[in-house]
């Protein structure tokens, strides 16, 4: 069980103070969609879960273990960002290997690239790939990292319809077969309709189950 309890964050700007307070839970193999307008705190929620921001109160408990206080790299999660998921000057294979601690067999890289439909791309430089292909490489790396939580921060924005559908299907299949906790932040409610088991809306710094 992934349990986010009263996760509170305060953010001051010159004119006002914003207070965010988030609570939600997810079961293994479940996809949680998070939607909302820009500036309402969707990305803040993901930054808090992934450890880029420290909450002032609350807890994140994954399978009985609190994640509060752990640095991003020590948290049992892998993240797909909207941009800059890859080092564009490096090859596909190097990008995948860089994200994995310890050694990994060549065969596994071929297999994972095949799974995301990019077999034979291992020696290509990341910058030569299209946006959709780059996101698939990042997804392939996420799978090899073998972490129980998969966070998606609007990763399919800007992709064409067909690639978007392919990516959504991949995420759904992977979540189910690997029994992951998947949280997908998006501003497209239709994406959530396609794959999410439950959908929360972020409004004024709070989550509401739709």
């Amino acid at each position, binding site marked *: 069980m992934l349990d986010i309890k009263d996760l509170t964050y305060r953010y001051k700007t010159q004119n006002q103070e914003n207070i965010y307070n988030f609570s939600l839970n997810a079961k293994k193999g479940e996809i949680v969609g998070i939607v909302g307008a820009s500036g309402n705190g969707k990305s803040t929620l993901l*930054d808090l879960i*992934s*450890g*880029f*921001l*420290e909450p002032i109160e609350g807890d994140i408990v994954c399978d009985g273990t609190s994640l509060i*206080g752990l*640095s*991003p*790299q*020590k948290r049992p*999660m*892998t*993240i797909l*960002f909207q941009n*800059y*998921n890859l*080092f564009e*000057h*490096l090859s596909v294979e*190097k990008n995948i290997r*860089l*994200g994995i*601690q310890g050694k990994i067999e060549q065969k596994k890289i071929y297999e994972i690239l095949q799974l995301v439909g990019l077999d034979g791309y291992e020696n290509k430089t990341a910058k030569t790939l299209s946006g959709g292909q780059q996101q698939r490489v990042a997804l392939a790396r996420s799978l090899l*990292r073998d972490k129980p939580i998969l966070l998606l921060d609007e990763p399919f924005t800007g992709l064409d319809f067909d690639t978007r559908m392919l990516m959504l299907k991949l995420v759904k299949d992977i979540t189910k077969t690997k029994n992951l906790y998947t949280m997908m932040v998006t501003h497209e409610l239709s994406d959530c309709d396609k794959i999410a088991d439950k959908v929360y809306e972020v409004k004024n710094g709070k989550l509401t189950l739709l």
Partner: protein
Amino acid sequence: MFKKYGRFKSSLIPGLLISFFLLTLAVFLFFTLYENSNTNESLFAVLSPRILKLLKFTVFQATLSTIFSILIGIVLAWSLSHQQKFPNRALLVALFSSSLVLPTIIVVLGLITILGRNGWLNHISLNLFNHSFEGFLYGLSGILIAHVYLNGSYAARSLLHSFESIPKEKYKLAKSLGFSTCKRFYYIEWPAIKTTVFSVSSIVFLLCFTSFAIVLILGGNPSYNTLEVAIYEAVKLDFDISFALELAFLQLSISVVLVFFTSSLKTDISNIKTGSEMIPWSEPFGAKIVQKFTIFIFGLFFLLPLLAIVVDGVGADYMKILSSSIFIKSFDTSIVIATLSSLITIFFTLLLSGAKRNFALKSRLADSKLASIFEILISFSGTLYLAIPSLVLGLGFFLLSQKFLAPQAFWATFALLSANVLMSLPFSLSIIYPAMLKTATRYDKLCFSLGIGGIKRFIYCEWPFLKESIGYVIALSFCLSLGDLGIISLFGSQDFSTLPWYLYGLMGSYKNSDASGVALILLSLVLGVFILLPKVFSRSRVA
């Protein structure tokens, strides 16, 4: 709070240690000066009429130099930005960039060859109009011309980047609204360049305020002395250390205040290539004439002294120069010190930038209470050279060398290395820091989430984006060190000499042919390293 700091300790601790080391060095030198000054008088009490006169002239020439340099810089950058097809524009821009590293003694020698009593201009004037300009190059006019030569081109290069960063849509808007050239400048261009104008002005003022070699050679007589030159004369000619200390304190106090208020200003002297997309319509006829004339005149003003060095240098007796033991010694010393200085500079720059960016990024420590204090501290330690001018720094080391006996070469090397590194740091930080901030903004989340840190992060995430700038900084620092004539003027001797000091000696003893040859060697070395070294770095690859 400290737990959050702990997450970034690997980049914080080395940078903060370097920052504290630099600040400690400055404080140590300050107390060495204070201890030796043996005076309890306040700053205002030491302002004797003689010192007041020196101060007035120092501020006056720095103010005039800044105004002229900035005005010329603005007009030249504006002209270059609108005349993309001017013949050899790229070469001119590259040469303007190199003005920052040209040894001042070379510039002075080139200007003397063109504008001096026996210069080309005077010969032409005498032959055509039977009129001699005599000694107009010596005194305030000469100081201003040399300062404008060096700083006007530096300002133009910095401002050109600002002009070319203006989105072309704004020009289209101005065109569609029927703006005149003046109105376009007022509403579109000035708002885009004014921040750079103020920051470049502050840098130029500080450089002119602490200018040494130009005033020493072109000042002519004591009424045109600045504080720096007066310190040099008090130490080397009058042996009046107590007067030198009074001047040093005054210089230090003013510079510290100026630097403290300007250290947060941003400068742009990056090696980013210019050459923006062209505006698809022609400039009005009048503006076009003004722009082309400006580029031609200032191009000539910039090129002629360099050409004079080449023309005069070609005829020198190189067999004689190269077989001179003092030349060989000076050459070796210059190369060794410049190489060490450039390596230490880039090492310090990377560590200081790495620490400083922690306090600029929200995903790191920007929200912490001490962020702004640490940021100012690191910025200040990186701009110390502007606060502690080289002659004051040199005087501190000179006094230390009297107190702690060691071979003169030891103190001279230590003093030169310190001064060269401190001199290069403000420029290298303004190049490397924005690039490092950009890579962090782009890749921080990815690196943190994947656990990529330390050397691995530097190799795969920083180096590919920094290598060109690192090459540029090493070249810049090497050339700045190679051409400096500040501290060596206090430590230079027959036994310990650098190329600029050797050249100064040749000029002083009227060995003009040898001086021209050495000047050409120095110029070739500086331009060669400055142009070629960044190319070597930009070609290196990461697997």
